[in-house]
């Protein structure tokens, strides 16, 4: 659905997109539909946010207060979760699908101003979006009095400048307001008080890219794909130790094994899957035994103690050292912690230091208990979930692969600490 025709480079242009029927839904929505009808269709579809939290998109939109006031829509294109690269593909190959989705969602949310907050590293994708937005203005799909509907929509492509935290929705708002990207205290939630203090709907690129399809063919049709609690398709980024890393669009609920072993080709000859992150680097890792036979859906991953997150699978085969992977993960969150909340700022720092001691052989098994307790003290104690995003996967790795951590400590000790010389 979302990646259909994506191999055609002409899809990037307005003419190419319209050639495949693009913008017909926008025309239908702006000419024939009331905002409430569009909103109801989105709510009934059960579409869950594709950015990480998996919250119902329609419900989120319905939280915005009614009435005459300036409301905003922000498309979160700050995709910075390690392992995720689906939004990049969607913007790069089909920018108009996103713009059409934004325009229709803005109608439902009664927003007059929309922004695409794209991470600064995605420079060529931002150029593609800029060109597509200019074309859409030219064609009258954006701007004032769209298609004679007396509705206006301004859309601005806003480039970030390199900070994972800006994917957190309130940090994104601060960055968009021209500040350092620090998360805000919630509540108030952005739907009530967001950008410039106005009600704001924030949705991920893939979520918004689904919108034209749902409004075109109806909620019932959309619910025909996926599972009861995870309707629709999902563009899944599969990477790490697999032969064909890439984005694969599947119905939610397909066996995880199919994604990793069949579509992505599984690990290289002679290797086996040891563990994988099912939903980006913030999701607790699952061992092959736990996870390969689960359906790939929001509910199945939650039941297994992990999460579907942004839908990004990182596969570690038997050649990967889990303690080193834990350190690599912790370093990322340490670097990206904005420093506002103490448990995250200090917790990520000390986790990195302790894991470095582990791989250097300077730790004892007791230190692993301390690592675990630091993780427990981060979770739920910060303004946003960046700290939790380290604590959950690192905590899971220490718990599930404790033997391997102890073995690494012992092995490193044998190298770095030769037997004491008698006095």
């Amino acid at each position, binding site marked *: 659905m979302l990646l259909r025709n994506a191999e055609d480079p002409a899809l990037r242009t307005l003419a190419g997109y319209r050639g495949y029927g693009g913008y017909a839904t926008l025309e239908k929505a702006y000419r024939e539909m009331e905002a409430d009808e569009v909103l109801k269709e989105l709510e009934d579809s059960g579409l869950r946010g594709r950015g990480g939290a998996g919250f119902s998109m329609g419900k989120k939109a319905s939280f915005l207060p009614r009435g005459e006031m300036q409301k905003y829509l922000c498309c979160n294109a700050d995709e*910075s979760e390690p392992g995720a690269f689906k939004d990049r593909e969607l913007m790069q190959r089909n920018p108009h699908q996103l713009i059409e989705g934004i325009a229709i969602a803005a109608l439902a949310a009664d927003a007059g101003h929309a922004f695409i907050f794209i991470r600064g590293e995605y420079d060529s994708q931002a150029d593609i979006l800029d060109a597509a937005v200019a074309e859409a203005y030219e064609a009258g799909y954006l701007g004032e009095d769209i298609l004679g509907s007396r509705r206006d929509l301004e859309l601005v492509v*806003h480039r970030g400048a390199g900070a994972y935290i800006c994917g957190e929705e309130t940090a994104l708002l601060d960055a968009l307001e021209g500040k350092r990207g620090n998360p805000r205290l919630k509540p108030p939630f952005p739907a009530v008080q967001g950008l410039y203090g106005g009600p704001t709907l924030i949705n991920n690129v893939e979520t918004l890219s689904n919108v034209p399809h749902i409004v075109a063919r109806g909620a019932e049709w959309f619910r025909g794909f996926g599972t009861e609690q995870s309707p629709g398709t999902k563009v899944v980024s599969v990477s790490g130790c697999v032969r064909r890393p890439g984005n694969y669009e599947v119905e939610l609920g397909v066996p995880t094994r199919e994604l990793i072993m069949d579509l992505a080709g599984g690990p290289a000859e002679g290797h086996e899957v040891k563990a994988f992150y099912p939903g980006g680097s913030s999701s607790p890792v699952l061992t092959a035994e736990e996870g390969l036979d689960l359906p790939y859906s929001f509910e199945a991953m939650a039941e297994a103690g992990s999460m579907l997150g942004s839908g990004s699978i990182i596969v570690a085969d038997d050649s990967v050292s889990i303690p080193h992977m834990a350190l690599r993960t912790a370093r990322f969150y340490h670097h990206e912690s904005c420093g506002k909340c103490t448990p995250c700022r200090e917790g990520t720092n000390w986790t990195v230091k302790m894991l470095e001691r582990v791989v250097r052989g300077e730790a004892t098994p007791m230190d692993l208990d301390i690592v675990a307790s630091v993780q427990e003290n981060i979770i739920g104690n910060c303004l946003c979930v960046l700290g939790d995003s380290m604590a959950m996967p690192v905590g899971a790795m220490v718990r599930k692969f404790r033997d391997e951590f102890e073995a690494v400590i012992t092995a490193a000790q044998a190298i770095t600490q030769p037997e004491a010389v008698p006095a």
Partner: protein
Amino acid sequence: MSPVDGPGIVNPDLPVDIAVTEGRVPDRSPQEVPELHEVGCPDELRERIEGLMAKYPDRKSASIPALWAVQRLYGWCTPEGIRQAAAVMRVTPAYLESVASFYDLLHTDPVGTHKVAVCTNISCWMRGGDELLDAFRAAAADDPDFFVTGFECLGACDIAPMASIDERYFGPLEPGEAATAIEQLRAGADVLPEKALEKQPLPGGPDGV
């Protein structure tokens, strides 16, 4: 006036600011909004930033785009460039400095013209990202024209291990290709044309929906 003479330092009890003693601070306090006529802002930059401010309901939203404009013009966010942007935006240089220092892609210290960011995050690390970074560092050596750095996930794990070279993505790269890329940059030639992200096909997957 002590400890350091200058119109902006009014409290003699304040500790010495190292930025002042190193001469990195211009002759005016960063706490005031500079006047446009005193900063020598090129017209091109002023027009660019004014255009950016007009796109937003609040002019401060143009901070990051304005700093991008400064960096594109001067190669990095120079103190002079930040003052120029601040004068146009009617904000303090300190405010823009605080924003610039928060973000990884905005440089508040001089960097080389060619920027190479090698991803060393999980998926690239598994496929040799660290070795690739070493290879780029060795190839660029001490050449001040190059700014080679390890970077967190760039969102291109499908082409791991990868690098962003002058803001364009390339991968999957062999360590041996680092030297080729650096030579091509020196010669002003196309960089690794076959490894550009746009050349990579869609991996596929069922198209039944």
